[in-house]
């Protein structure tokens, strides 16, 4: 066995051992708050076993291993449905950015350790009501206030803000310059006076995203994580990290095997559905698409292993996989006919077709809509021109609302 295979075997064994305490069965029927509490205990267990911050520096509580060990562990972990969803964004984007750009290193170390152990959660305050795809168009502002700053405005779509202790935030500090030049990046205490979090209920019924209101929220200048006016670059760095978050060729929906199983069970036009060309075509096409994404992902891993930078084709996963998951889930409901009506709001996206279907629109929009992803591919990879943007280069406060 290679070192990595040994590592995988050990990780698999540990994950197995956690199933009785933290697995799907243990979580069944828990209210969100109870599940979160269980999640914090799971995160602590991960930390104690050396599976938290796998590729983070040891002086900040990490394990000092590589990206490959991290995704190897995650590959094993995702098989069991542990309650780790509350920490995905926290440890995925804001905390790494804090590690990179936080100025007070003692403070940083303390926060990172608490986040790794599930004691504290961080959120990321980027999107605003006025512009989902247009990050640089944000309106939340910070004005100087003595030696510090005073924040006013509103963020939206902030995942897990209701359980967060801290957040990273991009705000406008200068409305008189072009829109992407007047932004600055801070961290904020989510429990500070003037911060109000209001959960947003989503189409599928859950409420993991929030509106966050800032009403004269005062912060000192040591909360600043970018030069004044230099926040856009740090925000982009955060988004780049987002790209490397685990991919899933099933589009975060059920595995194709489950569709094959369904097609074997159900009859269509008097024969098993698996014999029907329409179903066969969907299975074959989805298999080919997912196999392609898997090969791209495997190649990216091999490249990282060889010390190379993976190609831009990794960006296809989200676009292609989630969009096709939506249609496949619809088809699975069609196959079930009137049996499909029975619906469990708390069923898992990964093994329930109705749940996968009703949450698919959220998946397609979160982390970049299809249109945004296509623009990115066209412009960044293929060198095609940017769309017309009438607000380009115009001082922010002169752009018509």
């Amino acid at each position, binding site marked *: 066995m290679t070192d990595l295979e040994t590592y995988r075997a050990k990780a698999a064994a540990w994950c197995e051992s956690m199933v009785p305490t933290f697995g799907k069965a243990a979580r069944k029927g828990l209210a969100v708050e109870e599940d979160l509490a269980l999640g914090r205990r799971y995160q602590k267990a991960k930390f104690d076993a050396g599976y938290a911050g796998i590729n983070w520096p040891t002086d900040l509580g990490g394990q000092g291993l590589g990206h490959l060990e991290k995704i190897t562990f995650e590959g094993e972990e995702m098989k069991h449905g542990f309650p780790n969803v509350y920490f995905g964004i926290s440890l995925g984007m804001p905390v790494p950015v804090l590690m990179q750009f936080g100025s007070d290193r003692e403070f940083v170390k303390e926060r990172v350790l608490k986040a790794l152990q599930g004691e504290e959660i961080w959120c990321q305050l980027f999107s605003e009501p006025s*512009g989902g795809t247009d990050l640089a168009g944000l309106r939340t502002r910070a004005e100087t206030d003595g030696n510090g700053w005073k924040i006013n405005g509103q963020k939206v779509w902030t995942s897990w803000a209701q359980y967060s202790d801290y957040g990273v935030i991009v705000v406008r500090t200068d409305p008189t310059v072009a829109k992407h030049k007047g932004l600055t990046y801070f961290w904020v205490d989510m429990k500070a006076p003037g911060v109000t979090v209001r959960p947003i209920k989503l189409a599928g019924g859950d409420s993991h995203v929030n509106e966050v209101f800032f009403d004269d929220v005062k912060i000192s200048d040591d909360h600043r994580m970018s030069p004044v006016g230099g926040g856009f670059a740090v925000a982009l760095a955060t988004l780049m990290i987002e790209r490397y978050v685990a991919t899933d060729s099933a589009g975060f929906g059920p595995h194709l095997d489950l569709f094959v199983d369904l097609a074997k069970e159900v009859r269509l036009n*008097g024969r098993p559905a698996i014999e029907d060309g329409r179903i066969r075509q969907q299975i074959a096409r989805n298999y080919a698409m997912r196999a392609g994404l898997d090969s791209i992902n495997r190649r990216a891993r091999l490249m990282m292993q060889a010390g190379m930078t993976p190609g831009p084709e990794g960006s296809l996963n989200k676009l292609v996989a989630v969009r096709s998951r939506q249609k496949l889930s619809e088809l699975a409901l069609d196959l079930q006919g009137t049996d499909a009506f029975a619906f*469990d709001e708390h069923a898992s996206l990964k093994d329930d077709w109705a749940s996968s279907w009703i949450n698919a629109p959220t998946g397609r*929009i979160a982390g970049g809509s299809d249109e945004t992803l296509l623009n990115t591919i066209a412009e960044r990879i293929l060198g095609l021109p940017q769309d017309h943007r009438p607000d380009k280069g115009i001082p922010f406060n002169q752009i018509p609302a």
Partner: protein
Amino acid sequence: MSILYDEGQHAIATESRRALEGRVSKDDLLPLLQTSGRYHENFWTTAKEQGWTALALPEAFGGLALGLVELGLIAHQAGRSLSGAPFLTSSFGAAKAIELYGNDTQKARWLPGLASGETIGAVAFAAGPDPLPARPGVALKAGKLGGRAVGVSGGLFADVAVVFADEGGTSVLAIADLAGVARDAIDSFDNSRCIADLTFADTPAETLVTGEAARTAALHILALQAVVTAHEQTGGAEALMETARDYALTRKAFGQPIGAFQSIKHRIAELYGLVELARANAIHAAAREEQDDFIIAAAAARLSATEAYDTAARDCVQIHGGIGVTWEIGLHLHIRRSRTLALEQGSSFFWEDVLVDRLAGGAA
């Protein structure tokens, strides 16, 4: 569309739209999702008051003796404003089965109530994936029904059901009073449809049609309902297309309305095409009710309408971005309804097969 609506028909469209827009709103509909066993009573009261329940039934039994074209107009408007109960279609289907295949006693017993809307009808043909099973899950024996009909829309409140059942190996279309029948409410993603599993146990039932004719009759009833539903789906798709357009005109990104971006405007233009094709096929099918090619026309209408509503639901949300997936904005009411209607009268797979069997002269 191979007919032009006349003045009376235009008036039906205008009047029903006015009535529904005033009385059904997403604020009423959203709470219905979170509980099973409730429907939008104001919608159903409106349907009864306006005579929509009587519309396509014979005058002799309290009906207005209009037809599928007129009922389609109502269904279109109900689709636009998201009707709060499934009975417009299910009661119509049950009533037509009784009108076409029942005897005078049966008609006299059930049709007046169905026409006034006081009696609610259901149609229980499907067995899970199969809208018209070769071997139905409910059996008729010595005038009594036994077995389970799964996922019957409106079944929770229906007084009478037309049931596709098995009678000693042949098919039978039967009618049953649901007074004593056990119903289990299904918690569905679209709860105002009042979907229930019906468990028949020594339930008295009367035969309407038996043998191969029962299958033909059941398909005819299903097709009638499918045409009503196609209008409802087209209405829903049309409303979503308009919502998407309105949003694209007002929402701005990068300094211009998002409707100026071709990815958005072309997507909405494609929806326009799907809606117009669905509309044309739905109206055509409604006008062919009495003709030889009715099943073909109904199948085409059903397929176009399902494609239009499914696509509009997907795309309208996508055009809205984040706001589109919030509970409060209510677009998910259409997402849910589009899927319910896609399943209720048989999936696209079923209607594709029905259509091709006829186009190809019965092959397969």
